């Protein structure tokens, strides 16, 4: 009943939580500006170099791309199969181990026993330097590893679907969620059984791999750049597939309205299989890239990443592929820039808090209501 003049006031009154968040965000921005200007205004302000902010943002974007890439698959399975897949994080780990096994095999074959290479240094005692996997020295191995990560994880995702999820297509989301927790345990601990439990270095260090961008004061290393190119490439391929192929149209239709899609004769099972192949494959690729970024690997890193991936997907609106990408970037940036205000051991908690606030205030996500598959 409000007139258009007071619509903002009305909206604020209707959504006090949203108002609070907007005010808080505004305050943080003012504080950020004060910090950059080196002005101290009582509790706000302080000092922060443009360089540090720049590198925080850049790191956030890179992590965000990896999380967003993993989020695409989670979002797709959520919208098409209607359940929150808790084994998605472990698919990320599978991609990393299988992909790096292959990359190592190519990079280090000949000098080092195959079993040390395929198990990503679980067996034997070859050092990462001896194997020498790096984008500048062994670009072919890194690239083939990425493809292997995609393929192996996609196959595993389809296999898991056939074994665990297909027999329960007609069950409710919570039953499927519980089954996916079971699947997650199986996959994660088979990884531990096969690859060992210790955290270990993967990539070799190469001199002069840092590329500096002077005007921004940014230091970008070659692996980060690789991730940027690979992730954006995969996302563009995904976009092309969704918009310009029959499969993409069928997927969007399924995500939009399953029953209607079935009536109109979309081959549901084939779309489901395609969903697992693409979603699982992208998860595997993102795990592989995450290890490229961090330089280390551990059997449960994907599981630990899962909640951040969920945060990204929820932020972007569950079911939306583009939302997952944007959500990933937001979560990545929150993750890295939150350290400006809060202690660094809280940055993960900050990302989770953003997710919970989002669910409470705008459960449909940033791009609520728009399902783009």
């Amino acid at each position, binding site marked *: 009943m409000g007139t258009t003049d007071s619509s903002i006031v009305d909206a604020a009154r209707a959504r006090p939580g949203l108002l609070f968040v907007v005010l808080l965000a505004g305050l943080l921005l003012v504080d950020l500006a004060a910090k950059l200007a080196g002005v101290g205004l009582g509790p706000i302000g302080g000092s922060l170099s443009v360089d540090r902010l720049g590198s925080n943002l850049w790191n956030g974007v890179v992590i965000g791309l990896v999380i967003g890439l993993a989020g695409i698959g989670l979002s797709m399975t959520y919208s098409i199969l209607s359940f929150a897949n808790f084994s998605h994080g472990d698919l990320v780990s599978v991609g990393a181990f299988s992909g790096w096994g292959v990359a190592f095999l190519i990079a280090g074959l000949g000098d080092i026993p195959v079993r040390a290479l395929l198990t990503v240094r679980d067996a034997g005692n070859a050092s990462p330097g001896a194997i020498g996997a790096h984008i500048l020295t062994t670009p072919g191995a890194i690239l083939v590893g990425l493809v292997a990560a995609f393929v192996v994880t996609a196959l595993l995702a389809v296999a898991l679907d056939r074994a665990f999820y297909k027999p329960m297509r007609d069950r409710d989301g919570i039953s499927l969620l519980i*089954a996916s927790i079971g*699947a997650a345990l199986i996959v994660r601990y088979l990884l531990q059984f096969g690859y060992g439990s210790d955290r270990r270095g993967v990539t070799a260090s190469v001199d002069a791999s840092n590329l500096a961008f002077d005007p921004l004061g940014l230091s970008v290393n070659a692996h980060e750049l690789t991730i940027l190119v690979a992730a954006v490439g995969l996302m563009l391929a995904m976009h092309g597939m969704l918009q310009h192929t029959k499969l993409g149209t069928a997927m969007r239709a399924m995500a939009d309205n399953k029953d209607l899609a079935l009536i109109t004769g979309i081959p549901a099972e084939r779309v489901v299989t395609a969903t697992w192949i693409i979603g699982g494959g992208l998860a595997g690729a993102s795990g592989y890239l995450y290890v490229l970024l961090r330089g280390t690997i551990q059997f449960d890193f994907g599981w630990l990443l899962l909640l951040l991936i969920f945060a990204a997907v*929820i932020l972007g609106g569950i079911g939306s592929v583009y939302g997952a990408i944007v959500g990933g970037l937001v979560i990545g940036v929150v993750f890295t820039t939150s350290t400006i205000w809060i202690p660094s051991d809280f940055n993960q908690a900050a990302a989770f808090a953003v997710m919970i606030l989002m669910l409470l205030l705008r459960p449909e996500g940033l791009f609520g209501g728009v399902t783009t598959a």
Partner: protein
Amino acid sequence: MSDADAPGGSASGPSAGGSEAPESATAALVEAARESDLGLVVGTLLAIYAAATLLTFTDGLNSVVGLLETLTFLGLVYALTALALNLQWGYTGLFNIGVAGFMAVGVYTMGMVVRSPDPAFGPPGLGLPLPVGIVAGMGMAALLGGVAALPALRLKADYLAIVTLGLSEIVRLSLQSSAFDNFLRDTIGAGTGGGRGMGMPDNPVRDLFLVDGQAGTPTAFGDLVFGVFGSDGLGISQPILIGWGYIAVLAAFLVGFYLLLERLGRSPFGRTMKAIREDELVADSLGKDVNLVKIKVFVIGCALMGLAGILWFGSQGNVSPTPQFRPLLTFYVFIAVIIGGSGSNTGSVLGGIVFAAVLFEGPRRVGGTVRGLIDAQTPPSFADAVASLDPVTFLAYATENVAPLQFVFLGLVLVFIIHRRPEGILGDRIETAAAVDLSERPAGGESDE
């Protein structure tokens, strides 16, 4: 159990024995166990004890009693936590997977309230009596439960799952943080100990056996017990005997939890919980304040989780956030509830006991025993084990690394139950949701003459 068998003929002769005599003593025993929930629980425990004894009897009485003590302790604490979760998930359908977080809040609050203010012994506390600490721990867990209930009011079950998981991770990461530790020390004068955790206050049960809890100075009661069962008697070590003393306390709490939840379930409140689980809109349309009931259920359930956390981890000497309060703990409890069949209190107790013995502790013990029988070097990695092409070597690797296989097994069990027996191993149980017997119409109201 035994008294259902032997004195059955004589004691209960006048009442039941006269009319229909059981065909055989064992059949009657099995029948009685099936009939009574208590019989079922005790029977399960005895079966587990028998298996455990069989596994370790060669190592002597002390090992056997020690293993039984471990199994019973784990069974009881899982049963306690499963009961609390069953109230939320089983009865009301609230899919809370932040159990670990609520338990952590309970036990940490208790520790911070009770620990000595002297910073010489690690993070300072407020130095208040233990009961105050326990109540405070439950209160904080309940408070956090009330906060967690807010999303439950408007979100779908799977969103709620993610929110509660996020909340429990926020709790864990906060407890882990040294900045948070310092902040608490500066503001309320009690710290968490950050990643290193904190020592737990003395267990009063220990003081019952030992003066001031110091080894070597038994109390009169301790003297008596140690004299009969200890090194002078049956040769069971003191920590194991004290452990059994604490088990008696846990058993008393379990009975308390069970009675509380049974009463809650068998009441109009319980009917409303069930109705919300079945169909929220119906409950709402029949005039039930669904949101209020959900909040109450969250608060009660989380307070009980806090208490279970205190009873469990508060008795373990030291708590630290990361190995102990990982989401994995929540999934353990879920598996316990699922095994017993969600919605059934007796099922949760049984599920807790079975989970702890068969799925949690069992595989490790069996793996260890099998490893002891194999005479082979353990290869350093899976790849080496495979490359050896020797099944015995591979078995040595597998039994040495039984922990991951155990989790794989857990996952398989979970998937199997969800596929084949979604109602749990006990099958479909009718848990009456009324304060009166509904099984038949009472004669008073019957009008056929």
